[in-house]
């Protein structure tokens, strides 16, 4: 089992969701986060006071998948989120030790899908 965490641009979320549905990945968790990578933030000005290089709004996805779904999920996220510019985001893939469905107390691979 893998836990896939992806940080993407907010306006790509819809496209990523569509790609994930096409890859039969229907269960995702989404967070709004602030982030700062290579892409520079926009300077904000409040009554003449400048706020330099603020953090940018990003969307963070968390998807738990079984091994054979890991690569299709990664490909779907890339397909939906890639624009070719700085700030497209990152995908992190982690090993997942356990997964429990609370309603049935099922464990492991069956609990993920």
């Amino acid at each position, binding site marked *: 089992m893998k836990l896939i965490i992806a940080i993407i641009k907010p*306006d790509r979320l*819809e496209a990523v969701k569509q790609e994930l549905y096409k890859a039969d990945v229907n269960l995702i968790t989404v967070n*709004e986060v*602030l982030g700062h990578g290579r892409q520079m933030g926009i300077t904000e000005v409040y009554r003449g006071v400048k706020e330099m290089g603020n953090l940018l*709004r990003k969307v963070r996805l968390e998807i738990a998948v079984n091994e054979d779904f890991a690569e299709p999920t990664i490909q779907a996220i890339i397909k939906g989120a890639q624009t070719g510019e700085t700030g497209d985001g990152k995908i992190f893939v982690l090993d997942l030790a356990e997964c429990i469905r609370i309603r049935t107390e099922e464990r492991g691979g069956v609990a993920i899908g």
Partner: protein
Amino acid sequence: MKKFLTCLILIGFVMAAAGVVYAQQAKEATSSSAQVSQASSAGGALAAREGKAGYPLAGGASLPEGATRVPVGSDSAPAAREGKAPTASLPEGATRVPVGSDSAPAAREGKAPTASLPEGATRVPVIDTGDTAWVLVATALVLLMTPGLAFFYGGMVGRKNVLGILMQCFTILCIVSIQWVLFGYSLSFAPGKGFWGGLSWAGLTGVGFTPYQDYAATIPHQLFMAFQMMFAVITPALIIGAFAERMKFSAFIIFMVLWATFVYDPVCHWVWGVGGWLKDLGALDFAGGTVVHINAGIAALMTAIFMGKRKGATNKAILPHNLPFTILGTALLWFGWFGFNAGSSLGANGLAVNAFVVTNTAAAAAGLTWTLIDWIFNDKPTMLGTATGAVAGLVAITPAAGFVSALSAIIIGMLVSIFCYMAVALLKPKFGYDDALDVFGVHCVGGIWGALATGLFASRAVNPAGGDGLFFGNPKQFFIQAVAVGVTVAYSFLASYIIYRVVNLVVKVRVQEKDEIMGLDLTQHHENAYTIME
């Protein structure tokens, strides 16, 4: 089953309202002729009317001999102004003068029946304090509508664009206020038979504190100017909703200055200015159905078509980020609209009360109707739908407010929600234009219905200075209304399109794609409306 029942209730409601109105019409038809003849035969009544309009008669020739003159409308006789004419001072048999009754023709038109003045009587324009106080307040009420509109629209856009909307509304408030004082008022209202009014009143030359009789005989001319200024402000602000979330701020400013000058000012002159050809034709527009709503609504459609869809609106609806803002804005609009419509009587009189009552009635009927439409077709009644309906009702009653009765207002209100819902939910998806906040669907469609409805439901029993509509035996009025609508639609669309093209040559009207994605707040104004964390 529930849907079926709701449907039945809705239909029953419409039928009952229609029944009451037609019964009322029959009654009015008989009584209105009596009222009119009474008003024209009783010389005393007309004399008092004149007094109310601010022209105390010298000599009092039209009063029966020996009658003590009741100084109506002057400050020294508050009793008379409140309608408590001291009957004791009238000789027996003298007709009691109904001050401020509905039979008094509209001061709005400023067409005091000069013919009834006895020869040799001098007319001195006198400022009526009550009228002036009311129009001052009404002017402030209309001003409040523009920030109200900002919140109405601001709540419906994404949260990355809310400041952009508020900023555009406030900027228009600033720009048009200046434009109006410098030359806008003159172009719109200076007397003249041409394309617009000319520059004789530019910089408010000659626009002082004595009343200008052809516009408002009892309030300072400059107050009339200020009242009209607020209309000139909110009209371009209405268009913002169509190109929301994608217009460059610099292009926006140029577009609006040109639009206010070359579209609003001429159309305003045609409909309301002395010498305006639609006014001379007999078109009725009490508070701005054609000048404000159709005018802005059709320009909105033009910008929506030629600017193209918002990024992200192609396969998915862009959801409102803060509906409570929208409802707050609706409330401010509804409140301000009392100034807009009831203030358009330009006096504290029965006509203002009629406009006030029908405004509220139509908004209520339209809000309720949209609630039911949502309930029937979309499973649940929605807050946004109800608010949209109320605004549509306010739009529709605007041209009719001084000419129709409260019962007609119910019909006008109910039907406007049906028409606007069809425009928003059926027409827009079919043609695929991205009128972001439904300016065309609500303001243009609602305005057209209101202007035509004025030609149907207008009644001299409500306002003798107005006209009778189709349902009161005058089909010609409906035709005149249709002409006014057609002319406004055609001119506004074409002129707005030319302005749009010109501006697009100078500055690209639409923001760059990456700026649109980032949002107008950050890219156009370097500000963020909301923080995620401190």
